[in-house]
């Protein structure tokens, strides 16, 4: 029970009475310290799922538990949001204050924490995302990747065990995406549970576990290697596979003897050059 930080039990959700289910019978358990990527094309229900975990939306049917707390339990609302912090897609629309450190302090200030403790948390969070030198800057003068790191720091300052990111890199340039991914990998190695919702297969490859969603249900679930082997299935959901995996599969079709689960360029190079 306790080793799963997030338990989703047969959850269904629809936005309107008459609309179709955005999430249609999803069950998913996430272990503490795990780095999970959820992929799926637009409208596959992945962002809705994230909001269900954070209690921003409540399931129409089924239950979501965060650290054993039921998200539909009103009295646990703030504990749930503190445990599972959420970072959104648009970096501009989630920063509240005009100074970086003030923004990071926003979460703990809401929790009613002692000023000296807030100061300590803000400094720790800034250092964790490598933005300490920028603490006095106004956010609108930062790059997209930096703004997103500030948003992540804002969640860290809440002392969240789990960080849910809803397409955090969708609006960033490649270097900004790299910054964010490196930050996430680092936080994960320090024990944070990461749930990354993304469009980019290169990012999903970096996770411990990949969940593929389509039409509100989970279609594939496993390690990146297990999932990306199923090229045809994934393409059927309107998604891409990592280029190197596709290349490997093409080579296999041409008669080369290669393992079918290659997801890393270096891995393929090593095998081909043997």
């Amino acid at each position, binding site marked *: 029970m306790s080793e799963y930080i997030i338990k989703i039990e047969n959850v269904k959700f629809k936005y309107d009475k008459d609309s179709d289910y955005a999430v249609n019978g999803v069950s998913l358990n996430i272990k503490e310290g795990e780095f999970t990527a959820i992929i799926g094309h637009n409208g596959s229900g992945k962002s809705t799922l994230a909001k269900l975990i*954070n209690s*921003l939306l409540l399931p129409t049917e089924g239950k979501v538990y965060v650290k054993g707390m039921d998200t539909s339990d009103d009295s646990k609302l*703030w504990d749930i*949001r*503190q445990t599972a*912090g*959420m970072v*959104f897609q*648009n970096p*501009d*629309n*989630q*920063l*509240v*204050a*005009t*100074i970086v*450190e*003030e923004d990071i*302090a*926003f*979460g*703990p*200030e*809401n*929790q*009613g*924490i*002692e*000023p000296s403790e*807030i*100061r300590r948390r*803000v400094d720790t969070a800034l250092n964790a995302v490598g933005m300490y030198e920028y603490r006095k800057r*106004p*956010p*609108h*003068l930062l790059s997209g990747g930096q703004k997103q790191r500030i948003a992540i720091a*804002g*969640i860290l300052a*809440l002392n969240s065990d789990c960080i849910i990111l809803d397409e955090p890199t969708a609006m960033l340039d490649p270097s900004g995406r790299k910054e964010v991914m490196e930050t996430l990998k680092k936080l994960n190695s320090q024990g944070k549970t990461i749930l990354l919702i993304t469009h980019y297969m290169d990012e999903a490859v970096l996770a411990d576990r990949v969940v593929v969603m389509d039409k509100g249900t989970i279609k594939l679930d496993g390690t990146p290697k297990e999932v990306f082997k199923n090229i045809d299935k994934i393409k059927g959901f309107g998604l891409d596979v990592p280029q190197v995996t596709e290349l490997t599969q093409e080579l296999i079709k041409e008669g080369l003897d290669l393992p079918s689960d290659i997801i890393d360029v270096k891995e393929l190079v090593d095998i081909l050059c043997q």
Partner: protein
Amino acid sequence: MFKNLTIGQHYPVESPVHDLDPRLKIMMTIIFIVSIFFIKNFTGFLIVIGFLTLSISLSKVPVKFVIRGLRPILLIIIITFLINLLMTPGRTIFKIGFINVTEEGLKQAGFMAVRLTLLIMGTSLLTLTTSPIILTDGIESLLSPFKRFGLPAHELAMMMTIALRFIPTLMEETEKIMKAQKSRGADFESGNIVSRAKNLVPLLVPLFISAFRRADELAMAMEARCYRGGDQRTRMRQMEIKNIDYIAAFVFLVYLTAIILFRIW
């Protein structure tokens, strides 16, 4: 072009005036405004000018910045001057057609112009020496006693903070939309006022729609970060009264006493 926009006119240097507690500065400014209306003749202004000179030199803000603050209300000063000049009855100095300038009029006009100028210079010193964010904190703290009468002090301050945060973002966006619409042939520069105003529609509609979308997303992000209004909320930055505040309050009291004594005497 909006990238380096500074909001308000804050002049960031380190000075004793910058260091003062914002609450004290706001209260002093309000009393300063009132004090100016206590003065009934030109010699009285010497006290105000003396106090202002002291404050400005201590604040290390260049005088030209303080004077620049007058520019937006220059027109009001001129109009006030002219109305007083022409409308005050009394001993005529000279007369051209219907224009009749009296000695009393000239005195009154000069008096009003000096009063307005000093008023604006004094108040702009507050915004020049206090960053908007600290000013907001000060206003929130000063208004919080009125919470019991239903005044939403925290909400007002939060609105100001968010406005300050989003002004540059929306400015950038305006610029982007303008470029996008210009590239499709929109014309924002020519025509008379009416047609220019009409041409702004394709700029304002997308801007408003985007602002509403932003507001929606921001609200969700704030909720996700446990925002639940001002109750039980703490602040990282604490305001505290320091020695310099006592000194400033003392100097200000001396100034105020001088004004009152001068009035009675």
